[in-house]
């Protein structure tokens, strides 16, 4: 446990000190502030525009930062040979993977909360008060980020940072399109429906973490659904981290 904590702390520090990350974060915060202007040209729909684009912006920049940080997490360590130093100590591969995961997850959660603070400030400034329902969307975004970090870490164990980033983007897109795919094959052959159904359960279904539309339209969100989404992220991330650990252990370093 101590090893996991030490690795996590160092990973967290390295992540939040990254200058490119600072640049992306500043741009993300400027984008959220820009929604005030967009709200002013929205023909009376300013709060709807600010909330919808603000939440979407937080999500997109959050995913960009996640892909940027997670895609090089393992592969750069292998390339720079720093991984040998760590593994030469009494640190197991599992402790390494978990430490990296928790460190990066904590960094991304912190960045998400920074963006959330600016977003809540913008909504309050625009006359929307404290946007408590958005907290549900932010919590789900953090859950999704956790699953996504594990996914991109797995890719990072297999491929170069660039390839891991591309794979991550593809999974992100597919993960949000699975319901549409299922709907599309409703009137197709049984074989195609079976394949689509299998993909629906195998590929991480990321749309469950998206309640932004419901939030913007002031619709209630079932707490049970948020808890199920959290459980899903936990279980799926566990599988992905286990696979990452197995791949790293078998790698000829």
């Amino acid at each position: 446990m101590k090893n996991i904590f030490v690795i996590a702390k160092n990973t967290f520090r390295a992540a939040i000190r990254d200058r490119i990350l600072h640049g992306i974060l500043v741009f993300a915060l400027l984008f959220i502030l820009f929604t005030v202007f967009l709200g002013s040209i929205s023909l009376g729909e300013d709060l709807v525009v600010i909330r919808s684009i603000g939440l979407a912006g937080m999500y997109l920049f959050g995913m960009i930062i996640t892909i940027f940080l997670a895609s090089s997490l393992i592969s750069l360590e292998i390339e720079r040979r720093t991984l040998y130093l760590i593994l030469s100590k009494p640190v197991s591969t599992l402790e390494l993977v978990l430490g990296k995961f928790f460190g990066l997850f904590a960094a991304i959660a912190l960045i998400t909360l920074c963006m959330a603070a600016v977003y809540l400030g913008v909504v309050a400034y625009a006359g929307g008060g404290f946007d408590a329902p958005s907290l549900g969307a932010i919590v789900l975004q953090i859950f999704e980020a956790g699953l996504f970090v594990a996914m991109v870490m797995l890719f990072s164990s297999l491929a170069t940072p660039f390839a891991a980033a591309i794979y991550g983007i593809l999974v992100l897109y597919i993960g949000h399109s699975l319901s549409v795919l299922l709907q599309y094959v409703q009137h197709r052959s049984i074989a195609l429906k079976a394949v689509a159904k299998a993909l629906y359960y195998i590929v991480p279904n990321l749309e469950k973490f998206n309640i932004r539309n419901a939030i913007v339209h002031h619709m209630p969100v079932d707490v049970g659904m948020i808890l199920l989404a959290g459980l899903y992220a936990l279980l799926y991330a566990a599988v992905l981290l286990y696979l990452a650990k197995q791949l790293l252990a078998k790698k000829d370093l």
Partner: protein
Amino acid sequence: MPRTVLHVIIGIVVCAGIVATQYSFDVLKNQQPKPPLLLIPAPVIRSADMGLHSATAAFLWVGVIQRFATLAADRLNGLAAHIKTINDVDPKFSYPYAFAELVLPAGDRVDEATEIGKRGIAVADPDWQIPYYLGVDYHIYLKDRKNAAIYMNVAARTPGAPANVKYVAATYGNRQDLRQQTRAIWVSIYENSRDGIVQQQAEAQIKHIDTLDFLEKAAALFKERIGRYPKTLGELVAQKILKAIPPDPFGLPYDTKGDGKVFSKFEAQ
């Protein structure tokens, strides 16, 4: 127990947990009301899309179509507003205009359909479907033959108009039987459209007209046997001319006034 076996068992349990969680989530989700599709004003979209208006409009169009694909009447609420937004983002994107003209009248939104259609003719890329479907709306829903003929001729003169559309436009108003005129229009739409939803709509209309013809032939047969036309369609079944009254594709009841003619809500009188 060997470690590998334990790992495999744990792996299976965790994967089963993932599937069970997803399944439970879907069950809960289906019990929740679905939020409406977000309608962001067009000026906001145009200012934020970095000049990629046509790509943004196309992207919005895909989202709208996914949402409104079933075309149930309650789902048509908001479709006109979404299509207007897409048209404002990219006024030259022609297909949403044509789609609105075909779909909105089914939900008693003919006025919105014609308004969208007229705007499309004025600003969109030349597309024979826009004036043609506008002509269809005038013919079927507004019973305005004059404007129907005008817009069908506009469609026939639009580059790319198929031969059967030109034929329908040329013979429009010449046919004595308006029902067959309407059928010819729907056949041309069915044959020329690549859109599954539009083809579905056209097919239902053709089947509706064919069923009316079929019931009138049955009524004529009834008269040959009994010496009068049936006062109700139930008499056709009672006299064993038909086993049952065929269902209408739109779920509307058929009726007769005892004169051998059969009608329903969409009959072009």
